[in-house]
């Protein structure tokens, strides 16, 4: 890890230079919201935006993609057609989300499709200002120390730039003239001040402390049925969650032949089909059971397994669910044993 300093006015030139490595992607306005889109320059990006509709997981594990082509003799993996991408403006919560994805897709059973995309994607993080839906302070994901190639912290006059990988360092070496290693006392004071300032910006006072116990105590709580009655089973929460990673696979054949493709697409444990098994039995036929699984996984089970929640506090479920079921309302309902209006 190394921290460098860059003048803010040098950022456009830097991003212009790194395009030589790969496509440049960043947060761009889409209606009232924001999405990561391919851009030519920094001027097209909206760096003030808090969260994109879908997290950057779509780059590492797309909504629907072809894994391999097959015929009667065997199969050939679809590799090599993934473009090299530089994602600029990724916030700490989303990088924490990527770290959880890395754990699931790269550790015990390495997923070749995820691995290839991760390898070809550079993460250039950027500091952010929390809005009323941000709760990364409650999930301890408001700052980030790993998982990125470069990370830019906006200190008004200049950026402090964390170099998090050798690939990140390679980018710096494309324009060494734009970076400085001369950091003095004022930089340290500015940075300390910035951390205090950011922490003071949070408006949400959600508290996930003790959630594993509350989930255990509330396993049979009637709150789940009440939430189940409200849930639309639309699956949006799953699609927008940076740590939801479940997928379904289907083989598609060409008309009149046995050649075809195996495709993978985002699935959700909120769907009845997800827990349906051969013979017609369904492990979670009730909506309430499916909701309980989702939230237990995020705020209890994952903590038991990995010591931290599988919620990175990005606030997307809060900004997406039409019937107001999200990590805040569910944890509050469980704690207070009442579903809010």
């Amino acid at each position: 890890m190394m921290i460098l300093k860059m003048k803010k006015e040098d950022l456009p030139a830097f991003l212009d230079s790194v395009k030589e490595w790969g496509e440049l992607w960043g947060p761009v306005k889409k209606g009232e919201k924001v999405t990561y889109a391919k851009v030519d320059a920094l001027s097209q990006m909206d760096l003030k935006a808090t969260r994109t509709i879908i997290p950057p997981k779509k780059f590492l594990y797309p909504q629907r993609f072809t894994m391999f082509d097959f015929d009667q003799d065997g199969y050939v993996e679809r590799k090599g057609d993934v473009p090299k991408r530089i994602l600029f403006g990724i916030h700490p919560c989303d990088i924490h989300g990527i770290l959880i994805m890395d754990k699931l897709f790269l550790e015990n059973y390495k997923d070749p499709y995820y691995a290839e995309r991760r390898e070809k994607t550079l993460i250039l993080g950027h500091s952010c200002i929390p809005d009323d839906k941000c709760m990364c302070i409650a999930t301890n994901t408001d700052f980030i120390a790993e998982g990125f190639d470069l990370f830019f912290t906006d200190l008004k006059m200049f950026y402090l730039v964390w170099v998090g990988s050798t690939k990140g360092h390679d980018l710096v070496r494309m324009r060494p003239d734009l970076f400085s290693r001369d950091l003095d006392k004022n930089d340290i004071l500015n940075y300390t001040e910035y951390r205090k300032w950011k922490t003071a910006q949070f408006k949400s006072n959600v508290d996930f402390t003790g959630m594993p116990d509350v989930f255990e105590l509330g396993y049979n709580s009637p709150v789940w049925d009440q939430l189940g009655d409200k849930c639309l089973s639309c699956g949006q929460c799953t699609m927008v969650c940076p740590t939801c990673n479940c997928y379904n696979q289907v083989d598609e054949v060409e008309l009149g032949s046995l050649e075809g493709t195996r495709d993978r697409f985002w699935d959700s444990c909120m769907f009845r089909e997800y827990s349906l098994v051969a013979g017609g039995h369904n492990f979670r036929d009730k909506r309430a059971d499916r909701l309980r699984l989702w939230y237990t996984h995020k705020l209890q089970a994952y903590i038991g397994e990995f010591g931290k929640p599988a919620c990175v506090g990005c606030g997307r479920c809060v900004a997406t669910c039409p019937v107001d079921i999200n990590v805040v309302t569910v944890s509050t309902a469980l704690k207070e044993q009442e579903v809010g209006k």
Partner: protein
Amino acid sequence: MTKQSPKIGVYGFTGCAGDQLMILNCEDQLVDIFGATEVRSFVMAKSDNHEGELDVAFVEGSISTDEQLRRVKEIRERSKVLIAIGTCACHGGPQAMKLGEGKFDEMYKKVYGNAKITLAKAFEAQPVDAFVKVDMYIPGCPIDKTEFLTAVAKLVAGRHPYLYKFPVCTECKWRENECILYNGKFCAGPLTKAGCGAICPSHNIPCVGCWGPTDDLNVSAEYDLLKEKGYKPEEIIQKIKKFGGAKVAQIVGELEKKKKEAKA
């Protein structure tokens, strides 16, 4: 794959024939369809039709006359697999939006007055499965080319076709659209089966539900939400019943019964 091409037939009942037209509109694949299958009967596409035993019958439209009922039963008897194509065949279509309200005679009179209709005896339109067993459903208004073609390809290969069972919202989020419902406007996405690629919401037009009900829909939650957003109960019911057909009519009927009981 079987050496003999599967014998198929395409039939239309009460509907706009848009699904048959969509099959004909698969211009790039038509030769493949006619090559991989033996199209025995498809009145809209050819004049040389033979009615006999079929491997797969594709049936479009709802059933609304005694003559259609006789014919769909006869098609069922000589087909190994019967697939309902289009929302009318799968669920009833807009012509079945008043199912369960007991208003058929009134509607009939409004349209035909006292005219004597001798061609056939009509009854309230219902989906195909109200009368005969349906093995598979490919809804849509009209059906989606890709969904239809992938299903046909699987059938020809002797495999079971896979269609999305989740609601439009999932495809809508894949396309990274803002949620219309979250923003307070009527959208039938959560009640409606995916497969259209969320084409309307992707152009900022709310889903009207034309793919028909999804497997696991929560009508009551959608109703409560829309009421909270300021929509009138009659308007909500009318809109969700537009393409909801028999399934939604039944759910709405049960909900209304519950409400009456709660009031009493």
